[in-house]
Every structure is written in C-alpha cells, then in structure tokens.
C-alpha cells in the first residue's frame, strides 16, 4: 500500500480542472478525477464524450491546455517511475503485426529494464505469468495478427500486467472479448485490487467487471456528469434525461451523447 504511517493519503492518479483541446476544439472541460490505491474506477460515457482523450491526457500522451495531472503525487512533468504504470490502449495492432505474442508482452517490461541489457530471469517469469493470466500460454509464439480480436485485446492486457504496475489504466479492455474471458479479466483485476493497486478502466458496458468497480465516473460532452457508486447510476441517468444540456463540441453530432441512451442495458441493477 502507498500509505505510510502519518502521511497524507496520496492518489495514484489525480486530475484537477483538466482542459484538453484537440484541433482547437475543447474535448475535456475542467475535469477533476482521482483514483486511490486499491480503488477500481470505471470511466464511462457515450462515443465522443472524451473518455479516451481523458485517459491519454492523464498519461501524458496528449498535452493539456489547463489544469494539472499528478501520478503518485508527482506532477506529470516530473514523473519518472513509469514501471508503476500499466496502460492498455484501445486495441490497435496496426504496427504490431509480425510480432510474436511474447514479444508484444515483453515490451511491458521495458520500464524495468536498462538499455543494452538482455531480458533477465525475473522479466521472463513476469512475461510468462502475464500471458498465463490472460489464458494465452499456448499462443506464445503466434503472430499477433493471426489472433482473433478478443485474443489480441488479451495480449495487450498481458503486456500491461507484465510490468506489475501499481496503477493500471485500461481503455475498453473488454471490447471484442468473450464473456468467459471478461470474467477471467475481472478475476485478475479483483486480485490485483486486493493487493492494493489502483485501476481506472474505460468501459462501454459494465459486464462482469461491474463487481470490482467502486466508483463510476461518467463523462458527457467533455464534462463529468456523474462521479459516485455504480449503483447510483440508474437514478442519475433518469435525472440526466430530464435536465442535461448538450454541449455543442465534438459530441453534437453524436446521437447518443447527452441523451443517456447509451446506458441502455449497460447497467443491470
């Protein structure tokens, strides 16, 4: 755990009043968010609501125009302990074709390694363990392009797990993954949460991961529309339907945004 005796609790991941513009258009407007150790937070919202942008800005992959991001209590700019962070991007293997599964997953150990040093025994064990966790031990040497979409997604999850991170940020890790392996992922994440890591996961449908979610943060039109227990979402959603005003940013042409219709069937009480 991160908390020592007598110290102030530090968030693993915190954003304060974050504003991000893409191509001059505001995509996130004053978003504040915090994920603590041992906490599982779901990031939800319709297409174009800014979920992936927020995730990328939190990890420093996109610049922000206003506000601040802290990782483990350090400003993003001076943060260097990347071995504590695991990232599962939205599935895109455009340039990963031609790589074996174990080569892709091995990249998840890079933050632990120094240049010009070969893979150590610990690295190998972590790689094999991570591949085993997502149930792909029999595909170690398969070209990732030869796998199904759901299997590719699991490889990307394994890559993040291989680094033994204290903070895991997953962008729609369940898309295209069958129910059985969503449950496997839920089990893995539950076990890691119990060990004290922080999890921020972008979800479209809650599915089997619902059980490990302590809090749901809902983005709408680049603003936070809800931040609280997942269970409150049903009620909140009704309220949203009555009062919410659409932001005419990037989301204006998205029929799902703001109407809360995207939640249909996503949350089963």
């Amino acid at each position: 755990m991160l908390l020592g005796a007598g110290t102030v609790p530090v968030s693993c991941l915190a954003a304060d009043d974050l504003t991000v513009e893409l191509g001059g258009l505001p995509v996130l407007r004053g978003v504040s968010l915090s994920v603590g150790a041992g906490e599982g937070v779901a990031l939800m919202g319709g297409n174009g609501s800014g979920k992936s942008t927020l995730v990328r800005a939190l990890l420093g992959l996109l610049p922000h125009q206003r506000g601040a991001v802290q990782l483990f209590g350090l400003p993003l700019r001076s943060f260097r302990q990347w071995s504590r962070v695991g990232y599962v991007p939205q599935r895109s293997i455009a340039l990963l074709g031609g790589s074996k599964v174990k080569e892709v997953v091995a990249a998840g150990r890079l933050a632990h390694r120094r240049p010009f040093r070969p893979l150590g025994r610990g690295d190998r064990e972590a790689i094999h363990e991570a591949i085993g966790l997502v149930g792909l031990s029999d595909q170690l040497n398969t070209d990732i392009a030869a796998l199904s979409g759901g299997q590719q997604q699991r490889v990307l999850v394994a890559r993040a797990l291989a680094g033994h991170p204290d903070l895991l940020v997953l962008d729609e890790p369940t898309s295209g993954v069958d129910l059985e392996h969503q449950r496997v992922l839920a089990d893995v994440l539950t076990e890691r949460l119990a060990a004290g890591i922080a999890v921020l996961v972008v979800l479209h449908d809650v599915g089997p991961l619902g059980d490990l979610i302590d809090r749901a943060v809902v983005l709408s039109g680049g603003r936070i529309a809800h931040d609280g227990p997942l269970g409150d979402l049903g009620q909140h959603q009704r309220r949203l339907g009555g009062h919410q005003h659409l932001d005419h940013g990037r989301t204006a042409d998205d029929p799902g945004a703001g109407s809360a219709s995207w939640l249909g069937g996503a949350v089963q009480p």
Partner: protein
Amino acid sequence: MIEILSYPFMQRALIAALLTGLIAPAIGTYVVQRRLSLLGDGLGHVALAGVGLALFTGTAPIPIAVAACIAGAVVVEVLRQRGKATGDVGLAVLFYGGLAAGVFLSGISGVGAGGLVQYLFGSLTTVTVGDLGLVAVLAMVVLVPTLGLAPQLYAVSTDEDFARTQGLRVRLYHIAVVTLAAVTVALAMRTVGLLLVSALMVIPVAAARNLVRGFTSGLVCAVAIGVITAVGGAVGSFYANAAPGAFIVLLAIGVFMLSWPLSYLLRLRRAAAPLPDSMDDDDELVAPHTVTESHPHRHEPGCGHPAVQHGDHTDFIHEGHRHAVHADHYDEH
C-alpha cells in the same frame, strides 16, 4: 572463389559489401516497421548534396555525405514530430532540394553531374583502405544500437503511445533510427550506391517476414539475407563482369520472390504440424495423453499418411492431427 580473394581490391570490395549487407537490413527492420520504407531513398538524395559539397570544397565525400544525410534525416523527423511536414510535401522539398544542390554544386566545382554517377550506383571495386576503415567504424556505430537497443527500438516503432508509458524517450529513439538510417545510406554510396541502398534496407526485411515469424527472428533473418545477397552479388558481379550494386539488389529481389512460394510451403508444414510452435526455447510442452477412438487403419511407413519423426517415435499426420503408435492403440498428438 579462392582466386577472387587474391585480388586486394576484391578483398576490400567483399568486406565493404559484407558490412553493407549487415547494417542496411538491421536498421531497415525498424524503418520498415514504421512504414518509412522510402526514407532511405529520400536520404540518398540528401547525401548527394553532401557529395556535391565535397566535390566543391575538394574534401573526402563520405564524411560530408554522412553529415548532410544526418542533418537531412533529423530535420525531416523533427518536422514530422511537430506536425509541420504534413504528408510527404515537406519531405519531397527536402529530397529534391538535396538532389538539386548535389547537381548544382558538382556543376560549379567543374566536375559536372557525371561525377555523381559513381555515388548513385556505387563503385565497390574502387573502395580504398581508408574508405574501408571509415565504413567499418560507422558500421559498428549502426550495428551496436540496432542490436543492443532492439527491445526499445521495437517498442517505439510498433506502439509509440505504449512505449511512452514505459518511460521511453520516444522522440529521441525516433531521431536515433533516422540518424542511423542516414549513416547507412551515406556509407552505401561506395557499395551499392545511393539509388539502390534503400532496396537493401527494405527487400531483405520484406523477404524475412515471409520466411520467419516474430520481430527478432525477422531481424536476424533479414540481416542474414542482406549479408548473403551482398557478398553473393559482389562475387557474382566479378565473374559476370556486371555492376555489383545492381547485381546485389537483383539478387535480393530474387530472394524476395522466392520467399513467396517458400512462405506458402512453410505455412503448409506449420498447419500440418502445429506442435513445435509451443516448444521452442524455454516453453515446456505437456503433451496430453489422448487416445483415439477405434481406428481401423494401421499406420506404418509408406501407408500414405505423412510421417513426422517426433522424439523417440513416429507420428502420422491424419486429418490435421497426429497419430502415434502406443502399445495397442494410437495417441492423439
């Protein structure tokens, strides 16, 4: 083969060819992975400006070409990273600028554009001892990082965002790749020539992808193909009295074309024998003891089913799986 080695100029030519065949596919692997296959071609044009400058100032061409190439490569990469060189326009301006500057400078130096020809197509047999020393040093400069930093360069060229979240200085690595590519291109002007070096950076890599699986195996295989075709082309051109640069590239293209049917055959073999996949290096295979159901056919050598030697026994490939004789029944392997 022995008589070739008795000529000092051929000894130098072979060593120069070997070094080119070694480094061009090594750095080419990352260049191709980033979908920058034509980068080498563009840098070749920039190198010409360096040659022109060397002719104009009366200095040695290789060092000036290396410097010009690196400068061009870094400018292109920085423009790309800042989003300034939208599309290929910025690159085109730089590359044609390099070509024009090369021709212009060689013209006013009195040599004329004809003086550039030996650099466009290489002149392997006129490599001097001094050239060879420089080529050898710079080849090490390229080879050490392309192999030693392979995991980092792999991550940066395949998934930039993820590499960044591993704390890698992605921009620096990108600049390193184009810089090393620039050094390779400038070096190759003495061997296969500036117009053909890009072929040696790209074609062995493409052929290797057809033949082996995985990034690391691909890198090793591409380097092997590069070395074999470069040395083979140099030897062949000696006997055929042909231009070595062209011979080398045609040989590489020949290997690439052969890699298509070969990859098909390899795939067939893998499809028939999927087991070895999980058996390489440190992965242990636990073979399940699955007994086939009633099996009237008796497998033996020559029974019509392909036989595969598998450790201490022979398996027979049977409708996509394997049968092994075990006492009075067949095991599914």
